[in-house]
C-alpha cells in the first residue's frame, strides 16, 4: 500500500502522540509488488503483494527498544508504542546511546518511475512469453523471474525530523539450459524504470551461453589469469565492501585492521587502477535518499587509486573516533577503463572467462578469503578469442588479492545496485572442478 507524503506525516504524528518516551522515531514502509515465475518454458507461479509496516523506536534516557506491526488502527498503533516502551523500560542504559537526529537535508533523489508502478501481470506475462518463445524454437529450456515493485518509505521523530520518498524497481532474470543438461546460460537486467529492463537482450544472452557452454572441456584446477564479467565482479567484489566497517577494523577483527592497532586508512590496499565509491545520485542507480535512522545518504570514496581513503562509520563510532558518520554504502561503483567486455577479451592472450559466481561464502574474514563456484557459462580465452567452454570450478580466492592483480577493465555497466566493469586479473585460484552445469 502506498501512503502519500501527507498521509505518512499524519500517521507518524499520530503515532508520536501515543508515546510518553523521551525520544521516539517512527518508520513507515510499504508498497505493492508483482512477480511472475517460469520454468520448463511455462509460467509456474505468479503473485501480487500489498504491504504496509510501521516500526517504532523509543528511548527513555539511554534505554531503548523497537516494535513493529502491520495494523494501523489507533488501538493497534498504541499497542505497538506500548510494546516498545515496555521493553525499553526493562533495558539497561546503553553506553553507546546517541540522540535521535534533528531535521536533515536530503539529496534530491527520486528513484521512482510511474510506468514501473503501473506494470501489470499482463505486461510481465508478455515479457515471459518473449523469453520463452526463442527457447522453445531452439529446443532449449528456460526458467526465470520477472518482478516489479512500487514502494514508499517515511521516517519521522519527535525532534521534527521527517523524510519521505517513493521508489520503483523492476527485475528480470532467466536461465536457459540445453535438453541434455550439458549447457547452461544466464542473463538478467534490472532498473528503477521498467522500460529500461531489456528482457529480450537478457534472454538472448542466456540462450547464446547455453548453446556455447554445452560441450565443455576439462581444465585442471589451478591458478590462471581470469576475466570476470560484470555480474561475476558484482558477485565477488561486494564481499570486499562488507568489510568496510570502521568499528570492526578498529577492534582488530577485519581485513582492514592494522597489526598493532587501528585501521589501514591511508594505506595502499589495492592496485593503482582500483577506485571504489558510492553515489546515491548516480543516474543509473538512483539510491535511497536516507537510511532507516533518517541519516542522509552520502557520496563516499572508499578506495582511491588503490589507497583506502574511507571506512564506513555509524553515528556512535564516528562520535567516539572524532569522525563524521558516513552513512552506509548506498551502492558500489568500481571505476573501469575504456572499452567493452568483447574488447577486453580480444586483448587477452589467455584467461578463464567467468559469467557469474554462485554460493559465495567467507572462509576466512581475516584475509577476506572466499569460496564459491562458477556457473552458467565458463570459457577458455586464447589469443583474443573464446576458444571453448570449460567445466565449472570451485574457487578459493580473496577480492583484496584480486584488487591487487587487475590488468585490464571494461567500462562499468549497471548490475543490480552496482556499476561495475568486467575485470581481467593476472591470477585467480580455482581449487577444484565441479561436475555441476
Amino acid at each position, binding site marked *: 500500500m502506498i501512503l502519500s507524503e501527507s498521509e505518512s506525516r499524519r500517521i507518524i504524528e499520530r503515532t508520536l502522540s501515543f508515546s510518553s518516551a523521551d525520544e521516539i522515531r517512527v518508520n513507515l514502509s510499504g508498497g505493492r509488488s508483482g512477480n511472475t515465475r517460469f520454468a520448463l518454458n*511455462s509460467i509456474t507461479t505468479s503473485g501480487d503483494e500489498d504491504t504496509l509496516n510501521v516500526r517504532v523506536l523509543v528511548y527513555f534516557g539511554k534505554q531503548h527498544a523497537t516494535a513493529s*506491526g502491520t495494523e494501523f488502527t489507533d488501538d493497534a498503533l498504541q499497542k505497538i508504542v506500548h*510494546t516498545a516502551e515496555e521493553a525499553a523500560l526493562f533495558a539497561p542504559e546503553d553506553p553507546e546511546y546517541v540522540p535521535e537526529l534533528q531535521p536533515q537535508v536530503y539529496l534530491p533523489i527520486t528513484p521512482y518511475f510511474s510506468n514501473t508502478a503501473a506494470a501489470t501481470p499482463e505486461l510481465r506475462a508478455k515479457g515471459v512469453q518473449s523469453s520463452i518463445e526463442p527457447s522453445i524454437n531452439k529446443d532449449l529450456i528456460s526458467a526465470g523471474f520477472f518482478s516489479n515493485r512500487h514502494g514508499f518509505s517515511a521516517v519521522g521523530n519527535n525532534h521534527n525530523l521527517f523524510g519521505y520518498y517513493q521508489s520503483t524497481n523492476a527485475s528480470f532474470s532467466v536461465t536457459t539450459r540445453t535438453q541434455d543438461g550439458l549447457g547452461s546460460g544466464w542473463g538478467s537486467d534490472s532498473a528503477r524504470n521498467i522500460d529500461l529492463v531489456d528482457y529480450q537482450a537478457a534472454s538472448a544472452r542466456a540462450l547464446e551461453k547455453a548453446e556455447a557452454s554445452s560441450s565443455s572441456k576439462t581444465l585442471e584446477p589451478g591458478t590462471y589469469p581470469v576475466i570476470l564479467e560484470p555480474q561475476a565482479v558484482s558477485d565477488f567484489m561486494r564481499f570486499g565492501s562488507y568489510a568496510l566497517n570502521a568499528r570492526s577494523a578498529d577492534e*582488530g577483527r577485519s581485513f582492514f585492521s592494522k597489526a598493532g592497532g587501528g585501521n589501514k586508512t591511508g594505506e595502499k590496499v589495492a592496485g593503482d587502477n582500483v577506485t571504489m565509491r558510492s553515489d546515491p545520485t548516480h543516474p543509473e542507480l538512483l539510491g535511497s535518499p536516507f537510511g532507516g535512522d533518517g541519516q542522509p545518504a552520502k557520496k563516499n570514496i572508499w578506495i582511491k587509486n588503490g589507497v583506502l581513503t574511507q571506512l564506513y562509520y555509524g553515528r556512535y563510532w564516528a562520535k567516539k573516533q572524532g569522525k563524521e558518520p558516513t552513512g552506509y554504502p548506498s551502492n558500489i561503483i568500481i571505476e573501469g577503463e575504456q572499452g567493452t567486455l568483447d574488447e577486453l577479451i580480444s586483448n587477452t592472450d589467455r584467461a578463464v572467462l567467468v559469467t557469474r559466481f554462485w554460493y*559465495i*561464502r567467507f*572462509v576466512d574474514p*581475516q584475509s577476506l578469503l572466499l569460496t564459491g563456484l562458477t556457473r552458467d557459462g565458463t570459457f577458455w580465452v586464447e589469443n583474443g578469442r573464446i576458444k571453448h567452454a570449460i567445466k565449472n570450478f570451485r574457487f578459493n580466492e580473496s577480492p583484496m588479492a584480486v584488487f591487487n592483480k587487475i590488468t585490464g577493465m571494461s567500462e562499468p555497466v549497471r548490475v543490480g545496485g552496482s556499476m561495475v566493469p568486467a575485470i581481467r586479473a593476472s591470477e585467480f585460484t580455482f581449487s577444484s572442478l565441479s*561436475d555441476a552445469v
Partner: protein
Amino acid sequence: MKEFLDTALNTATANGADYADIRISRHKNQSIRTRENRIQSISNSESYGFGVRVLVDGTWGFAASHRLTKNNVANITMRAMEIARANRVVQRIPIRLAEVESYEAQWNSPIIKDPFEVSINEKIDLLLMVNAEALKIKGAKYCSSSMLFMNEEKHFASTEGSVIHQNLHRAFPSFTVTAIDSERGEFETRTVDVLPMGLGYEYVEQSNLVDQAPKMAEEAVRKLTAKSVEPGPKDLILHPSHLWLTIHESVGHPTELDRALGYEANYAGTSFLTVDKMGKLKFGSDIVNFVADKTITGGLATCGYDDDGVKTTEWHLVKDGIFIDYQTTRDQVHWEKYQAARRSAGLPEVNRSYGCSYGDSWSSIPFQRMPNIHLEPGKDALTLDDLIADTQDGIYIVGDASYSIDQQRYNFQFSGQAFFEIKNGKIVGMLKDVAYQANTQEFWNSCDAICDERSWELGGTYYDGKGQPGQSNAVSHGCSPARFRNVNILNTQKQI
C-alpha cells in the same frame, strides 16, 4: 475469522476457480541482541495479513494483503483470479493437484514455556551474564549474544473442505566469542553449538549458555595459537552440531523434486539426483539411511499440516544407501517424469503429497520447502569416544561455519567452529585453517561408522533460502557423530 475464510473461497468458486485456499496468519518475532555489557537492540515485530491462492484452468494465481476486511478479501481474491487468467497464455504445463483428505483441525507446537510470556528482563540478564562469563577468560576480547523467538499462528481453509488452525513456535539462543591477537593483527571466533529448535523458552533454559561461555571463550583463544592444518586426505569425525549442515546442503536440497525437474533452475539450481536415479543410485554406504519428516518434536519444520492442507508424515529418501524418493507437494505428485521413473525402478506407487508445502508469510506463495531430514543412528552400539579411539589419523569437527555447494549439489566445501587433531585414537590438540572439500556421492559412500541413538541430536537453521521472490524456511536435521574416510582437507590460510 470464518467469514473471511468463507469470503475468499466463495468468491473464488463463484468466479470459476477450480481450487482455492486462503491463509490468514500472524507472525510474531522477538529479537534481543547484546555485546559485552550492553544491549544492542530489543525488537518485537508483528505481521498480520492474508494470502489467497486460486487455480484457474490449470494456472495458479496468488494475491495477498495486510488489510483484513471482508471487502478486501473479496477484492484480493479477484486479483488472484485476474493474475491466473493473465498467465494462462503462457501456461504450457497445466497444474494438477494430488488428492487430499479434508481436515477440521488444530495443531500447536508442544512448547512448555511461551517465550513471549517470559520477561525481557530475564532474557537480558541471561545474555549479559553469558557475555560476562566469556570475557573472564584471558584473551577473549568480545562477546555478542542473542535470542530470537518466532511464533506463527495461521488459519488455513481450502475448497477441499479443510479448516486448519496451527500455532508454531521456534527459539534460537546463541553467542559468539572473539579472541584477538592485536600485535599480530589476527583474530578467531567461536560460536556456541546451540542451534534453533521448534520449542519454547524451556529450550533456552536447557541450553546452559552461561556454563558454556568460558569453554567457548577458551577455544576461541586456543584457536589463535592452534597448529595450522596440514592439507591432504584425512578421516573426519563430524559432530551433529556440524554434520546437520552437510546433510542439509548435500542431501536436503538435491532431494527436492522441483529442483530435480528444473523448476528452480534460475535461482538455487537443479539437482544431480535426476529422477532416473531413483531406486538405483548408490547415494551412500550401506549404513546410510535418510528419513524426511515433519512430525518430530522440536523440529523446526515440524507442523501438523502443510500449507496445502496435507497432514504431515515421515518417509525414507535414502534406504540402505540407495536413493529412493523426493520431497513433494500436491502440485508435484502427478509429474509424469517422477511417476514414470518410479514405475521403471519398481518402486511403490505414490499418489499423495508428502506435505512439504510452505509459504514463509501470509504474503508469500506456498511452494515445496524442505522437511526435517535426518541421518538415522547406527544400529550397533557405538559412542563418540569409541569412534575417536578407533581412528588413527583424523580430525574431529564441531560446529558449523563456512559452507558452499554447487548448483547441482555435487561439489561442496565446509568449515567448522572447532577442529581437533586425532592421532592413534586420541585427541592431541586443536587445529585451525581447516576446510574439507568433497563430492556428495563420494562423501556419503565414505561413511563407515555412525554412532548409535544415544548421541543422536537435532541441528538446524532458521534461514534456509529458496525461490523467487526469496523465501526463508526453518528446518532441522538430526544425526549422530559419524566418520568419513579419506576426505580432502584444505588449508585456508592466505597471505595477501
